[in-house]
């Protein structure tokens, strides 16, 4: 099984952050890494993105929280998390011990919350970057998601950038008319990199009970079903921004990883696929190494944006 190609150079740069390879795990789908410790080779991963952290603990939504759809799933976890303080004291130590580059996904109801979380994360050892989830509703603006308005997206980016002492990755919402407009705004706001996409908004109905399948009524659609949308958005955004892009959305195979790299992503995050096959993230690192070698590439970087279109 241990046949990771010796010679393959898988290193990629996400701005100032160098990763040993472009395979990361996506927020909310990999817990705090420890959950997967017996099932995946954690050490092989490029980085681990943890479940979204808020200023204070959140209980999340009532059940049912998940429902399967065709080649996908809907979730309305409701951003359940232990809050930033307990995250630092309870969850970070394991990531630090393991020496895993941790990307901390953060979310808030207001600019102040984003700022406060970023400040609390200052100086914490082992944090490779902050990933800003801007798909959250801005309570002060009547609940419109930060990520659907270029101006608000830029402001939350700037706020976190000013407060953080690590690179800032901004995670884009796909539920917008023009993703390139948001991407440019976020880049102008100071983002060091963009990760995309978060989930599409969807819904399911249980016809027997005539009720929504999720207690929250609407939820986030993820999994292979959304891959074509994610790939398109990465491709569009890669053409208009100069910061690195991390591709996310339905990635479940080596082929998918390569598609996102070709479209212009410098790295990828594996989300829902971790549920289907908990070993997939580190398996993909090995498969990618074999591919780079078999294709005779001097570095995986040669694939980035190499689409002929």
């Amino acid at each position, binding site marked *: 099984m241990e046949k990771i190609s010796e010679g393959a150079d898988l290193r990629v740069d996400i701005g100032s952050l160098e990763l040993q390879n472009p395979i990361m795990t996506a927020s*909310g*789908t*990999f*817990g705090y890494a420890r*959950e*997967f410790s*017996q*099932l995946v080779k954690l050490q092989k991963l490029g980085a681990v993105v943890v*479940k979204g952290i808020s200023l204070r603990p959140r*209980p*999340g939504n*009532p*059940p*049912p*929280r*998940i*429902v*399967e*759809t*065709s*080649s*996908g*799933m809907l*979730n309305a*976890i409701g951003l*359940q998390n232990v809050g930033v303080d307990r995250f630092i004291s309870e969850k970070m130590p394991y990531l630090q011990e393991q020496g895993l580059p941790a990307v901390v996904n953060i979310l808030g109801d207001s600019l102040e919350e984003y700022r406060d979380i970023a400040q609390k994360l200052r100086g914490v050892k082992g944090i490779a970057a902050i990933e800003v989830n801007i798909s959250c509703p801005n309570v002060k603006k009547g609940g419109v998601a930060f990520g659907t308005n270029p101006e608000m997206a830029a402001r939350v980016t700037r706020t976190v950038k000013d407060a953080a002492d690590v690179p800032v990755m901004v995670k884009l919402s796909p539920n917008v008319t023009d993703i390139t407009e948001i991407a440019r705004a976020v880049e102008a706001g100071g983002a060091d990199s963009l990760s995309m996409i978060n989930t599409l908004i969807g819904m399911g109905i249980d016809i027997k009970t005539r009720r929504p399948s999720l207690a929250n009524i609407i939820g986030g659609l993820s*999994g*292979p*079903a959304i891959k074509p949308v994610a790939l398109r958005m990465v491709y569009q955004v890669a053409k208009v921004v100069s910061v690195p892009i991390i591709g996310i959305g339905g990635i*479940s195979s080596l082929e998918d990883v390569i598609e996102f790299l070709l479209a212009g992503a410098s790295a990828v995050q594996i989300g*829902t696929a*971790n*549920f*289907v*096959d*908990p*070993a997939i993230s580190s398996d993909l690192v090995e498969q990618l190494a074999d591919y780079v070698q078999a294709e005779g590439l001097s570095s995986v970087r040669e694939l980035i944006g190499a689409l002929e279109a």
Partner: protein
Amino acid sequence: MAQNQENAIITSVEQLSAENFRMGFHAPKIAAVAHPGQFVMVRRMGSTDPLLRRPFCIHQVDDDGGLQLYFKVVGRGTKLLSQLTLGEELSILGPLGKGFALVNNRPACLVGGGLGIAPLLFLTRKLAEGADDPSQIRVILGGRSRAEVEPLVADFEQYGVQVFSTTDDGSFVRKGFVTEVLQEQALVADCQVYTCGPEAMMARVFEHCQEKGLACQVSVEKEMACGIGACLGCCKTKADGTYTHVCINGPVYNAEELQWKK
């Protein structure tokens, strides 16, 4: 907790009724460490639909790496599972969750309804093995009709336990609910009740236990995506109103920990 993902070959397929199947797998790593009440998550490879693994209780394990599931066809995933044949391969993840707390050498009463019978066979074996007098272990098997109960009786009886059967329609042994049989048992106060079945049934079993002051462990279900505590999808409301995650904190709970619909 030693978790494994194994590609397991199907070693047996028994169709116990129109919709109920029992399947055996060679899954030595999982079988070696499994505990009664734990579950596995199963996936057929080669397609993204259905996408997610399906959770099933561990019905039985043997010393040669064999693992059995007992399931009912209710939707697409279980339909596809039921169509698999000997020699085909499936990915199994497990053992998962916290199983039953085995209270040995105290009278035990196991109450299973329908597919809730699934985890009780492995439990019965372990309890019987740890008991001086297995006949002090009572197992109440209930189902809608004969097909849900009869094929399983002998599997329980082999361990020398007392088996009581009942069916909603009276097509096997007697007509009635498991709770009626339970009431007749006049269980002693230190008896440990273990139950698995439809929520409404478990609620009634728990009610009975509360009345009689009996300890009651329940095995519950919830939609699951990961089975290992990562997705936070499988939440259930506890008695105190907070949430618990069935895949890691359950599926077995002391009944009083949970909120029960009245």
